[in-house]
């Protein structure tokens, strides 16, 4: 048994106890209590230090100053209190089961520091599905592993303020999934992952392109930026976007579409609308020629099995990105359904992805917003509901949880929550997930970059984790403006000097 840390005091409950400690205790520290039939594991959720001399009765600075001196010499002056959440019997936790004792421990029960051996067995279980993600925040000697099976089957939400390590965590997951030859698709809205260096064998980088021929007329209207309320223009496009037009490839497609739209304009009623549609098509053709590609094959065919597929959406507008993401989600879900049916011997054609896939959506509050219906939201909701059966996992990543649809957020079986200051965000997470207690959520403001609380089905217990840094990820941080300006200024100065020197005749300046 490790060193005694303290003694339980006050009223004890089966799931919550308070102890007086011999030293200050950190939030997130794990402790062992010996009662009932076995050792019981607890997590320090709150911690406080009080001083008898420096109590709240101090009336002014002078008194505080004097009290500070007497407090320093009185070794009984300080009280270190820890508030423990009982997590369950250690032996059961090692078997991934959280069984709480039926009875509360008696006040006076001794509290011990949890040993590395016990914590290792609980937080870093062996098995191929358990991948290493970092270390316990307060016990850095103990590894923290997460269950990738649960991530794929029950989904994951990665929530934190900007710069706290969301993309790093997703990169780490990608790295570990690549290591076990898994398939992952990352929708990269901010070009955070294009330099993720895991060897060309593991990464498949794709530009987010849309084949307009594969879209419905309504989605094509969105892509070429026809206003939603322009009903005449929508009507023209619907009439013009015929099966025949859809069969054309490359530039021929655009010509055929323009021609068909002009033909609809022959009707006097739609002349003006048709002219506008033609303009819009022409505009989109020129402006989005790198994005809208009628000659590309089925986009799904570009995704590769057993690789980390990174789809770069940086050049797409929000609406276009939304259509691209929803397209992939719909197709992937269909393919996985096909694969499942095939396993049961019911599928007619071969699926592209015979094994489960994990899909990560960055900026989830944009694609899965709370107060707006988007295509991505519809399909993400379907994946969240049905993905478990068909082996399609969803990872949603956001710095603004309050902007995410609550239904989808509540279906994320696992959570990785990092520093979060906004009360609204905290409340939204708390309302959407039972995995995080209010006390744990209160700790979110105290986390540093790279530190997270993991909760839900991908871990045995709510865990404070120091997430490993992915060294293979070269960018993602903020741009250093001052440094770059200084470098540019120095270059400019050098160039100016060199250019004026060329006009000075040699020997003109005498020493």
């Amino acid at each position, binding site marked *: 048994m490790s060193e005694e840390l303290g003694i339980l005091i006050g009223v004890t409950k089966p799931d919550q106890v308070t102890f007086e400690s011999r030293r200050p205790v950190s939030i997130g520290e794990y402790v062992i209590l010996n009662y009932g039939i076995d050792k019981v594991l607890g997590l320090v959720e709150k911690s406080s230090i009080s001083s*008898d*001399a420096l109590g709240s009765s101090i*009336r002014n600075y*002078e*008194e505080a100053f*004097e*009290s500070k*001196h*007497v407090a320093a*010499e*009185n*070794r*009984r*002056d300080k009280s270190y209190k820890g508030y423990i959440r009982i997590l369950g019997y250690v032996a059961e936790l090692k078997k991934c089961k959280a069984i709480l004792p039926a009875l509360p421990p008696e006040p006076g029960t001794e509290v011990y520091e949890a040993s590395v051996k016990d914590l290792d067995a609980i937080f870093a279980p062996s098995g191929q599905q358990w991948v290493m993600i970092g270390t316990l925040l307060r016990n850095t000697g103990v590894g923290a592993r997460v269950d990738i099976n649960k991530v794929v089957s029950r989904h994951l939400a990665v929530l934190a303020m900007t710069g706290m390590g969301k993309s790093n965590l997703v990169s780490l997951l990608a790295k570990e999934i690549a290591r076990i030859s898994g398939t992952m698709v990352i929708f990269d809205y901010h070009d955070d992952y294009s330099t993720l260096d895991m060897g060309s064998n593991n990464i498949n980088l794709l530009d987010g392109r849309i084949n307009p021929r594969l879209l419905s007329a309504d989605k094509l209207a969105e892509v070429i930026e026809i206003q939603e309320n322009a009903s005449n223009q929508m009507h023209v496009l619907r009439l013009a976007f015929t099966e025949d037009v859809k069969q054309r490839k490359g530039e021929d497609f655009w010509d055929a579409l323009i021609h068909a739209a002009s033909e609809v304009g022959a009707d006097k009623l739609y002349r003006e609308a048709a002219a506008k549609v033609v303009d819009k098509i022409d505009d989109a053709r020129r402006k989005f020629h790198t994005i809208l590609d009628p000659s590309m094959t089925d986009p799904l065919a570009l995704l590769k099995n057993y690789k980390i597929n990174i789809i770069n959406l940086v050049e797409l507008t929000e609406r276009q990105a939304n259509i691209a993401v929803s397209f992939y989600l719909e197709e992937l879900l269909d393919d996985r359904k096909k694969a499942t049916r095939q396993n049961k011997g019911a599928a007619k054609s071969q699926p592209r992805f015979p094994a489960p896939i994990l899909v990560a959506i960055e900026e989830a509050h944009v694609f899965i917003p709370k107060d707006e219906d988007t295509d991505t939201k519809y399909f993400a909701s379907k994946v969240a509901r049905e993905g478990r059966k068909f082996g399609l996992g969803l990872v949603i990543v956001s710095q603004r949880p309050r902007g995410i649809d609550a239904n989808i957020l509540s279906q994320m079986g696992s959570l990785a929550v990092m520093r979060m200051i906004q009360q609204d965000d905290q409340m939204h997470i708390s309302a959407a997930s039972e995995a995080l207690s209010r006390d744990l959520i209160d700790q979110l403001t105290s986390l540093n970059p790279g530190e997270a609380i993991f909760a839900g089905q991908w871990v045995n217990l709510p865990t404070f984790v120091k997430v490993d840094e992915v060294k293979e990820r070269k960018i993602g941080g903020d741009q250093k403006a001052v440094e770059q300006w200084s470098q540019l200024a120095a270059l400019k100065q050098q160039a100016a000097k060199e250019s004026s020197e060329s006009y000075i005749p040699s020997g003109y300046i005498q020493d």
Partner: protein
Amino acid sequence: MLKEVFLGALRNKDVKISKIKDSNFHKILAEASSRWISYESVPEICESAGIDSSWNRRAFQGLQLYVIDAVAVTSTNKILALEWEEDIAGSARSELLESRAMVMEASVAQKAAGKADNICLDGSLVSRLTKSKPEAASEIVKKCTSCIFISKTSESRLQFGPMGSKAGDIYYYGHTSKEAGFSIPVETQFCHAPLFEVYARLRDHTPVIRIEIMSNATEQEVKSTLNKLRYHSVGGYPYCLKLAHNTCKITNEDIDRLASIYGLQNEQGARDALNE
């Protein structure tokens, strides 16, 4: 409370205050000022011990469960001596318990003597005479000759009573100035022994405290005492006395716990009998 009480207070405030701050008030203040010696004490490193006692009781169907304790503790929370007594008796009058507590304090003071540089007892020695038996007071005189008695409040009118003061002497010293200093020691008698009364302020703008010294108290000796008291004082009051008070305090919860140990809580009618 009745709102009429507040309204009356608002209306008659000036009249009522003028009863205290009458023409005599300024005369007394002038006198107090003439007896006040400005002195900014210099902290002198020393070990001070505070002594305090406490008692509490619960009546139970003609029986009294009582506890008395006394403690001597240093500013660094080192217990130098302690004594206690708890019993169930047919009678335990407050005067009796007070006297026993005082005897206990004397005994603890005797045990602590020599273990600290400065031994302070909480409360006034003179006021103890009014609350307890004379034997207890004489016990104090016997055993606490080297101790000093410190009180935060006092009703003593020894110095300004003859001038027709309405409030205690401490009130007038508190109003003369806000600077650190002390009053000229005034000698009185306590149980046929000389006792010196000094009012002092350890630091500027802190409350005045009343000090009783049983040995001879010259100005120089008072200054030396103040220097010792200043070290480890908080808000102009020795910290060891605060610790002593907190350490020995017998709360109602404590006496309830004791009643529980004796099984008295479970007796029929116990709650009424326990004044609850």
